[in-house]
């Protein structure tokens, strides 16, 4: 589906990227820990997050994330919006919480995605 459809499903506002709404997405990754986004999010996915700092944009740029959806009605600060504009990454904002945002997208056919990067032998506690 396109970002137009996503906007409908999530009753979302467009913060950045009004001219890119034809973009197609099939997968989504939700996270508030950027290390996890770096390690697991698939290129071309939506990133669903409650974080609003410029880091989400840089992380998305590095990973070729398609677009960012901010949850819980969050509005990003100017520096985040400027960076998103510069790096060409659309940002939408929905009033729904991350759980409901995920739920609504899942209901409409968006799938989760987990990228496997590198080796698998994490050192753990």
């Amino acid at each position: 589906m396109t970002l137009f459809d996503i906007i409908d499903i999530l009753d979302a506002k467009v913060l950045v990227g009004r001219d890119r709404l034809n973009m197609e997405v099939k997968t989504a990754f939700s996270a508030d820990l950027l290390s996890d986004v770096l390690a697991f999010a698939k290129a071309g996915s939506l990133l669903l997050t409650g974080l609003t700092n410029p880091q989400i944009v840089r992380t998305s740029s590095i990973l070729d994330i398609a677009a960012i959806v901010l949850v819980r009605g969050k509005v990003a600060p100017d520096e985040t919006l400027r960076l998103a504009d510069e790096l060409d990454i659309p940002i939408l904002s929905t009033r729904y919480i991350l759980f409901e945002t995920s739920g609504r997208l899942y209901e409409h056919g968006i799938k989760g995605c987990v990228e496997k990067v590198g080796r698998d032998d994490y050192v753990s506690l």
Partner: protein
Amino acid sequence: MSFNYEQSFTIQGGNFTDAGEVSVFIKKTLQKMGIPSEILRRVAIATYESEINIISYAKAGVIYIRVTPENIIINIDDEGPGIENIELAMRAGYSTADEKIREMGFGAGMGIPNIINCSDDFTLTSEVSKGTHLKIIINISTN
């Protein structure tokens, strides 16, 4: 395809505003060179997590990257407090991050474990009150 590139980047500690800028630049540069996306991803994780570590904990640091036809070598050197317990730092979930870093979405204690996970070869040395040195090698090979 013959890869041949090297560059050094200086990063200021505490510069959270620009955090990630170097990593984005490196990624775009390597992407233009035709480095495969799986490798790009691993380089991205290694450089980004390192950049965040320098900014979060050190006074300043340097990321040096060298791309050859065989591999990518990333050296990270910082001037900072150093790591007191390297074994702990290498454990998933161990973090010394403060509130500011956590609010950014980092500080989950996965930085070094994620870097290790992406490396084909990894060295970490540190001296308390002086700084930390990481060397990461990622092989460019057709498996």
